[in-house]
């Protein structure tokens, strides 16, 4: 976690009780200023691919398949939140989550910590730590109880790794008859440490815009994101290409992630009249680096019968390219040609990690008790011939282009 933001969260945590104590003598009292709520998921996930791990987030170091046949770490987490309504206009929120971290620990981290000022009932400004609403379920993806599925379709939700961001965001709502239109904009930055020595992803000057239109049961949403992304982990490797003159320099410049512009466009819609729902989202991301360019979409539908909500989802991620011809070997002395061929192979193994896969999911949610649900989900994934798919911890026996079956059982709760 970024030191400055830790300090900010700590300040919010320390200052809030002061307001509460100050207010205690008033009829409002601390009880109505503060509200505490929490959520969690307890789950087990099994993956049929034993030469790699299935995870729900790229920020987790291991998961189901290779590390454990049945893994509780993929979806299990617990979160707590204190919300404070200091005045009718001014409110604050701090949310802490404990889940598997990049380093395998379960040390809690601050997911949200911001102060919100409500200028009018329809216009607000927040400063502090927020989750970006890139996709329809991005900002509540960790609150399993809010989702129809075990987890949002990973093909789409891993298109842009979503991390907690620090900065300012604003929301404006416009109501015209039965149309409710909400525009959100933010300027943030984030530092996300990736597991398994893949380095820290530094996102700077992140500008985000989204517009949501609700008309009765219909929701339509577009969002756009532009960010400068730096991941230095591959710099030493790519710099080796620079030794081969102009063609090597061109390759290194193309694939390094040194303050590279990343643009993302997302379109989504949902129709939920109550007894059934259909949701679809489409996204495109261009990283201008070794992370490549990808397009992903999903469509999901479910029906609510009694306390059950069975659903089916199809999702797909396509990489613009999973390979590069690399350095031309013609004219190189034999010893150097062998070295260049090795570099080319290493580069292609990196590009192979850009996800190209499709998944059919079948599952059900069962609202078996107040504030609890149980979900069972089966995913059948086909990985593109040149791609490692969305898997981590690839073992020597792993081969691209296979199929993977994943089974998940989770219990979600809110309190």
């Amino acid at each position, binding site marked *: 976690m970024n030191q400055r933001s830790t300090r900010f969260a700590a300040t919010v945590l320390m200052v809030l009780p002061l307001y509460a104590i100050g207010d205690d003598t008033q009829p409002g009292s601390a009880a109505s200023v503060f*509200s505490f*709520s929490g*959520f969690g998921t307890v789950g087990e996930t099994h993956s049929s691919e034993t030469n790699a791990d299935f995870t729900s987030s790229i920020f987790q170091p291991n998961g189901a398949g290779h590390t454990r046949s049945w893994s509780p770490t993929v979806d299990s987490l617990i*979160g707590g*939140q204190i*919300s404070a*309504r200091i005045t009718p206009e001014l*409110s604050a*929120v701090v*949310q802490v989550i404990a889940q598997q971290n990049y380093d395998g620990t379960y040390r809690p981290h601050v997911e*949200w910590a*911001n102060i*919100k000022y409500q200028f009018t*009932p*329809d216009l607000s400004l*927040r400063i502090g730590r*927020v*989750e970006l*609403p890139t996709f329809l379920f991005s*900002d*509540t993806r960790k*609150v399993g*109880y*809010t989702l129809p599925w075990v987890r949002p379709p990973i093909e789409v939700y891993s298109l842009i790794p979503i991390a907690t961001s620090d900065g300012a965001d604003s929301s404006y709502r416009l*109501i015209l008859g*039965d149309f*409710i239109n909400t525009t959100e904009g933010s300027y943030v930055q984030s530092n996300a440490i990736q597991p398994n020595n893949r380095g820290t992803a530094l996102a700077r000057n992140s500008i985000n815009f989204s517009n949501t239109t*609700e008309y*009765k049961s219909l929701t339509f949403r577009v969002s756009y994101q532009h960010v400068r992304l730096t991941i230095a982990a591959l710099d030493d490797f790519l710099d080796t290409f620079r030794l081969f003159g102009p063609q090597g320099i061109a390759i290194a410049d193309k694939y390094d992630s040194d303050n590279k512009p990343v643009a993302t466009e997302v379109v989504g819609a949902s129709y939920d*009249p*109550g*007894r059934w729902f259909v949701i679809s989202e489409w996204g495109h991301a261009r990283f201008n680096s070794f992370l490549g360019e990808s397009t992903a979409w999903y469509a999901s539908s479910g029906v*609510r019968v009694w*306390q059950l909500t069975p659903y089916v989802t199809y999702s797909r991620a396509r990489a613009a390219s999973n390979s590069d011809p690399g350095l031309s070997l013609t004219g190189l002395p034999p010893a150097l040609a062998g070295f260049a061929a090795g570099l080319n192979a290493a580069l292609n193994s990196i590009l192979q990690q850009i996800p190209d896969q499709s998944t059919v999911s079948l599952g059900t949610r069962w*609202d078996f008790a*107040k*504030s609890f*649900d149980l979900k069972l989900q089966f995913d059948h994934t086909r990985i593109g011939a040149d791609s490692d798919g969305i898997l981590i911890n690839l073992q020597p026996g792993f081969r691209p282009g296979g199929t993977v079956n994943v089974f998940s059982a989770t219990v979600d709760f*809110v309190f």
Partner: protein
Amino acid sequence: MQFIYRIASAVLACALSLNISVVRADVVAVVSSKSQITTLSKNQVIDIFLGKRTRFPDGSSAIPIDQAEGSAARDEFYTRLADMSPAQVKAFWARIIFTGRGQPPKTVATGLEAKRLLIADPNTIGYIDQSLVDSSVRVVLAP
């Protein structure tokens, strides 16, 4: 053939009587009789209760008074207006709460308590069983 017809009409009769028994427990959306609001659409009422609208169509502020989780009136209100089960309402508010966007409306334990608050503040809107309606409140929607 006659046999099949008899079974079909028996099933239909059962279904109709079931339907009638559901319709009979009538929850209506009400405001204080001192309020200027006379009528609201289903959509306007549900948007106010889900925090999507904070004002009545005339621009005055709208404060929803909800009933306690698990109460028959509450379950019927959300089922009738939005086809939402108690779990769907809970999940809806979890999305709002855990993104720091707000808190659910104030809740009261009974329809009588709801009525008491409604009468005290003309900006509030609530729902009560039709049998509780008297001259102190005005029905703005009978779903």
